[in-house]
């Protein structure tokens, strides 16, 4: 656990920088805003205590807020997502439960499990975020379209990142 700490800190900064410098600047048809920084919450180990999960989500959201001029918006959505995570993990647990020493990754639990896990969390996050952003329901369908297209791009990135993890683990 402890020896994985530097890796988590590094990925925190890497994802934040990637988000604010690259993905916040993607302007594809005006509807697509992938928010890939939530991968950090996906990656956290199963044993992460609940309070730490929430606090990390809050810090992560607030950091993104700091750089995109939206105090409270990302932190609200990210904390909500982190709150859902433990119940979701319990709901989609495999028959013989989670094994010690494994992490929530495609490599350890397969594509189907990882797909369920990330799709639900990404949707929770993006729906909250985009509806807070527009602040009312009069743009319902354009917001819905933004949510769907952005979620797809976020998930594509998340799965590409998983392929890298997969290779790294195999080499060991």
């Amino acid at each position, binding site marked *: 656990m402890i020896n994985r700490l530097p890796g988590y800190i590094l990925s925190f900064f890497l994802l934040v920088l990637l988000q*604010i410098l690259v993905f916040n600047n993607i302007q594809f048809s*005006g509807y697509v805003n992938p928010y890939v920084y939530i991968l950090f919450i996906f990656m956290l180990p199963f044993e992460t205590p609940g309070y730490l999960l929430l*606090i990390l989500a809050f810090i992560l*959201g607030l950091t993104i*807020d700091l*750089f995109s*001029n939206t*105090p*409270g918006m990302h932190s609200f959505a990210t904390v909500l997502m982190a709150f859902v995570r433990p119940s979701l993990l319990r709901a989609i647990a495999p028959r013989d439960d989670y094994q010690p020493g494994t992490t929530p990754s495609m490599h350890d639990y397969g594509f189907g499990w990882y797909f369920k896990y990330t799709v639900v969390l990404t949707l929770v996050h993006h729906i909250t975020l985009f509806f807070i952003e527009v602040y009312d329901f009069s743009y319902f369908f354009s917001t819905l379209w933004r949510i769907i297209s952005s979620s797809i791009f976020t998930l594509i990135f998340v799965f590409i990142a998983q392929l890298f993890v997969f290779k790294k683990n195999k080499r060991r």
Partner: protein
Amino acid sequence: MVFVFYETIENSMRNFLLFIFRNHFTFLFLILEIVSFYLLVNFNSYHRASWISSSNKISGNVYQSYSNATQYLMLQQINEELAKENAYLRSQMPASFKDSKDYFSLVYDSLNKRQYTYRSAKVINNSVNKHFNYLTINKGSYNGIKKEMGVISAKGVVGIVKDVTLHYSSVISLLNTRLSISAKLKGKGFFGALGWDGKDYRYAWLNEIPVHAPVTVGDLVVTSGYSAIFPEGILIGTVEEVEKDKGESFFRIKVKLSVDFKDLSFVEVISNNMRDEQLELESTNND
């Protein structure tokens, strides 16, 4: 009797603490969401703490170094724009005026008093794809920039300064559904409110132009000069489409913005030296 009473208090206190401890996950969740919500709501009021906006020191520095790194890739384009801007400025010099008086409205020059001062600044962060878009520029109160000054580029209106720190300012972009500015049709005098609908970054909407106004596609839309923020006659865009709903007495005019918000690098901040005087006079009108 008294002893028993204390014991029950102690017991209920302990039960209460136990209850909180058992449900600490939910309580922490609620606390963090309340904090976020507080930030979110506070953000809507104009006087929120400015430490968290992108004009703050840390994020300002990150964006500054990022923009330093990328500007080499854009030198060609920036040079072109500077050349264009030079030409535009030269065209404003008195020597270049013989018949046209239109350009003089930019610099109001009566009794040798200068009403508007322009300061150039560089855009170091910008977005066009949100509902509420903001820019960050690399000049702040140290360079004389204050809240609510107008921001233009060589091509037209860009936005209004929102927050200022020592070396950076954040600017509400025209592409922000919360911003609406007073605009008129050039040479016709009808004025209305121009705002963005949150969809396409190339178009905005001009409302409140009465239906008896002669509007044609291609007309220039300029600032009205009524708001004490922008001088009169700064270009905003051209009329692209005129819509009229049945029974309405106003047009809905689609305006093609003259500024390409995806391609902004240098802007000018306008300070109106007589703004306080105008606002003071207007504040006496409140009845």
